[in-house]
């Protein structure tokens, strides 16, 4: 199969899937190796950047997903009647930052860093599916360990957790 056709087939699959499609699924369906599939996806992503207007191909961990460009979110909400995602409270953002950079991490660690109770922020983040329990610490009380989810990556435009910028060392305020 020619490359052009493989790209077309991959695009059709991404459209039908809706959800992120792992590179290896693409490789399997097109009967090519994973590296070739990977290069194919990169090419599609580039083509979307240059040719498409309202859509883009994003990478989340080892999978690719077709999504709309953020600039047009308002029109989509107008069309579907969906409510705008509310911005997260500062308590939630701080808690999320601590979890993202230190995962897996316990509630006690988070509270130590923030200097306040974090139950509410953690509950909200769990409900919004931005964090999840990833296990329990082998210590007295077996405290829960928290980590971020794939939805976290997507919601913040990160393709993996390594995409987070390094924390700024604090000098001047």
């Amino acid at each position, binding site marked *: 199969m020619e490359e052009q056709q493989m790209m077309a087939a991959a695009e059709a699959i991404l459209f039908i899937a809706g959800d992120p499609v792992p590179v290896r699924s693409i490789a399997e369906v097109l009967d090519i190796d994973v590296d070739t599939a990977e290069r194919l996806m990169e090419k599609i992503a580039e083509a979307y950047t240059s040719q498409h207007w309202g859509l883009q191909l994003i990478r*989340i961990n080892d999978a690719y997903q077709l*999504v709309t460009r*953020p600039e047009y979110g308002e029109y989509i909400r107008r069309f*579907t009647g969906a409510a705008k995602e509310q911005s997260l409270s500062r308590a939630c*953002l701080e808690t999320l930052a601590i979890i993202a950079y230190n995962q897996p991490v316990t509630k006690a660690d988070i509270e130590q860093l*923030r*200097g*306040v109770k974090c139950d509410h922020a953690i509950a909200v983040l769990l409900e919004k599916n931005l964090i999840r*329990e990833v296990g329990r610490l082998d210590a007295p009380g077996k405290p829960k360990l928290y980590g971020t989810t794939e*939805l976290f990556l997507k919601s913040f435009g990160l393709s993996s957790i390594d995409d987070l910028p390094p924390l700024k060392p604090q000098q001047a305020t």
Partner: protein
Amino acid sequence: MGYQVKLEVFEGPLDLLLHLISKAKINIEDISISEITAQYMDYLNQMQALDIDIASEFMVMAATLLHIKSCKLLPKPAQQSEEQEPDPQQQLIQRLKEYKKYKDAGEWLHERYMVYSNMYSKLPEEVVDTGEDIKFSNVTKQDIAQAMMDLLKRKNASQQAQPVVRNIKPETISLQDRIRQLTAVLVRRGKVLFSQLVSNKFSRLYIIVTFLALLEMINRGWIKVQQSRPFSDILIQRKGLRWKNNR
């Protein structure tokens, strides 16, 4: 009602301290404990004066600050104990610096979120065997309830197990739920104005459902409504509606 002063809200004692430090335009390292302690206590006093609950963390920090301040007034302890106990002021500075890093990271996340929460994805197409004919002959109302509960459970489970896409989420409110809520309101209050049931902070769907619920309740003879003239507020009154009607 007393005179209300708007007091800035802080995420905790560390947040408040950072605010005081930035207001003083100094580096975290250069804090003067006696000054910062005075300002910190001043803030707590204001909160108290306004009858705001002061979280215990703020009190603990107050005690820490006073402890550091008192240590400074005392003569330097002997060398051995200095080795054992780290300087509490340095400890506090360290905590503030750590906290500030995540506070800044939180701001960075906020900016990203404002952009990327505007991206939407498409729902997957359903794969079904279209050749099959459906048979509901053995299906009971219990099966319908079970299917709904399974769905809700699956939704809960999938949200925890493999969180991937946030699709567009239209808010859903069921008519039955709304009827139940309105019944509760009317049983409690006897009468209510339509404007009290909806306000512009609710979605259009919510208002529509409320309206449909009222129509249904009129239909069932549970309530009576009055409007003095077109576009004026609608008075809704209980009529033959008792709580058990709703069971």
